[in-house]
């Protein structure tokens, strides 16, 4: 359209409405469609997404082109001071590397989400999300409006919309880009093998707020800001059963689910008082 098409309010309105017909590669299906589908979105490299998911939901994060890189934060939706604690996640499970069967633990000794399935080559629990200084130095243009948006400022905006702020950006888990820790403590980057179609399925073990950014891993050795899109889908599902294999796998996991069940007891009392579902 030429500039003159938007010289009047009616012209500007028609111009605005015409844009909704565009089918973008990076799109959201709003609402998702089938009743059991909670979320369907493809996030381009450099961007972010947030969503509240109910207990039992299955969140699938898929790497369609094989070069995505995701930084993930998780909060208790009803008590957002409770959030992902990466040190507890690795220490309680006696394991540095995330994969199928592992828990994402909160700082209150409860299970936020479980990794139900994982076809990726691995993840990273130690390294930073990028910040403005890191991306400015590495790529130039690390601001969110520039060519190499940094994860930390993306999270600041994403969380601000949820009533949170920069204080709430803790350590993330970094998905799809494995990093190995050598015996001397040094990092070895293992994120260069393309893995198109790799997917991680996370089960929400309480009502959670999920926030994620799709930005290059800080150790990615490529000099250019390179990250392929993330395909997100989430569906409703049943919560972990009493004999759930992830719950039963270790004594630590068992107690983490016991603590979660204990919290859910009081949560149910609360919702009954409110007359909510």
């Amino acid at each position, binding site marked *: 359209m030429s500039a003159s098409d938007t010289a009047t309010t009616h012209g500007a309105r028609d111009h605005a409405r015409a844009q909704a017909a565009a089918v973008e590669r990076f799109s959201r299906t709003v609402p998702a469609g089938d009743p059991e589908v909670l979320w369907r979105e493809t996030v381009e490299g450099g961007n972010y997404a947030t969503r509240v998911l109910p207990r039992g939901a299955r969140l699938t994060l898929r790497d369609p082109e094989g070069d995505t890189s995701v930084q993930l934060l998780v909060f208790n939706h009803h008590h957002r001071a409770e959030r992902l604690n990466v040190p507890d996640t690795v220490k309680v499970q*006696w394991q*540095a590397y995330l994969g199928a069967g592992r828990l994402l633990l909160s700082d209150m000794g409860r299970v936020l989400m479980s990794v139900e399935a994982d076809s990726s080559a691995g993840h990273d629990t130690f390294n930073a999300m990028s910040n403005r200084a890191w991306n400015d130095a590495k790529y130039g243009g690390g601001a969110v409006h520039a060519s190499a948006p940094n994860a930390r400022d993306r999270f600041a905006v994403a969380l601000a919309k949820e009533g949170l702020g920069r204080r709430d950006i803790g350590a993330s888990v970094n998905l799809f880009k494995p990093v190995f820790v050598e015996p001397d403590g040094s*990092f070895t980057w293992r994120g260069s093998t393309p893995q198109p179609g790799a997917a991680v399925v996370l089960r929400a073990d309480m009502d959670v707020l999920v926030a994620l950014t799709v930005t290059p891993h*800080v150790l990615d050795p490529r000099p250019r800001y390179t990250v392929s899109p993330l395909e997100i889908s989430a569906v409703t599902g049943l919560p972990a059963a009493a004999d759930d294999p992830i719950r039963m796998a270790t004594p630590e996991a068992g107690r983490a689910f016991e603590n979660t069940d204990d919290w859910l007891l009081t949560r149910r009392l609360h919702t009954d008082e409110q007359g909510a579902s």
Partner: protein
Amino acid sequence: MTGSGRVVHEETVEARAPWSHVVLAGQSLRIVDLEGNQAVDFLLYAADDPVERYSAADTMSAQGNVYLTTGSVLRSNEGNPMMTLTASTVERHDTVGGACSRESNSLRYGHHTNHQHACVDNFLLEHVSRDMGKRDMVANINFFMNVPVEPDGSLGIVDGISAPGLYVELRAEMDVIVVVSNCPQINNPCNGFAPSPVRMIVTEPA
């Protein structure tokens, strides 16, 4: 006890106790492990704007290694240097293991340990006295604590490598609020199963 500089503050932190103190840019803090193998859980906040605080992840990424040792630069969540380890008579320190809490103790050692004192309670007490709170609790350093990461990813707190009188010295690169929990843990070897006092000595260049 310090190698150089004028002592501006000196204090012994009792076993199991919290502690916090402002260290100005250019000053140094020496932490002395008086009786040996006493984990000192440690956080930093920028005195001017505590939203900028220690980031274990930024520190590890910038130095390419999970262990802290002489020369390690402790970085903030914005990537800025907060303190530098100018000396350490212990080979390495931990920043992946986090702080013990009543809640994580219940997972690791059983629900009965939920009533034992823990580092997060120490940190939160110092936080609320400085107008901060739970949202300001982030992944910390554990000086004098030994957490190996094995090739299969196995990771855990094992017997310490510190000894009586060993120390770490940190130079402040900005004005920082140092917040410490002198770890009260008795269920793993991080304190040799017997929490003990540590000495804090702040100096400035002579």
